[in-house]
């Protein structure tokens, strides 16, 4: 188990460096300041998380486990509902502050990334606190 985790960590770091290197190679270092840097870090973080999840899921499927089952679907539906509601308020907030953004692309891209972040955080907490029998 520990061997697999370190393999995954090494692969993730290499992927991160590769993606970062390609992006910097095409755009140049001076592009990454302030908000652009935060957005880039978030994109790379999401890419790594998605890759890690896909890798883990693929391993489980190869062992014979189903990709989804009744409990994981239930958690997904609950997390999805809460993420949707939170994202609606987030977009409303962004709309109210639209003048603070340098351009529309940054506003939309930031909003999409924040939606992803909200979804990730909410799914984490729904799973952690999942208990149909709290008493």
């Amino acid at each position, binding site marked *: 188990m520990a061997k697999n985790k370190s393999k995954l960590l090494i692969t993730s770091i290499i992927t991160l460096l590769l993606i970062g290197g390609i992006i910097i190679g095409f755009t140049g270092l001076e592009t990454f300041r302030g908000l652009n840097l935060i957005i880039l870090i978030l994109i790379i973080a999401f890419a790594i998380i998605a890759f890690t999840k896909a890798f883990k899921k693929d391993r489980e499927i190869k062992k014979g*486990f*189903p990709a989804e*089952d*009744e*409990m994981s679907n239930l958690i997904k539906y609950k997390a999805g509902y809460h993420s949707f509601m939170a994202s609606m308020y987030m977009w409303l907030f962004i709309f109210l502050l639209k003048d603070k953004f340098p351009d529309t692309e940054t506003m939309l891209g930031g909003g999409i990334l924040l939606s992803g972040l909200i979804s990730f955080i909410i799914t984490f907490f729904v799973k952690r606190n999942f208990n*149909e029998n709290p008493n």
Partner: protein
Amino acid sequence: MKTRIKEFRARHNLTQDALALKVGVRRETIVFLEKGKYNPSLKLAYDIAQIFKMKIEDVFLFADK
């Protein structure tokens, strides 16, 4: 809702992984069932009881209100 899944698993020498594979769910689901955090569907409860050759009410303990 409490369950006796862990007890029956030990009796039948089954790991969580093995039981999960037999009933067609993820290992996580078995973990949550054993902790009493998840109420299974009727089909899943039945499948688990069948693995242990027990009745549903022997595996899943419903508290009287």
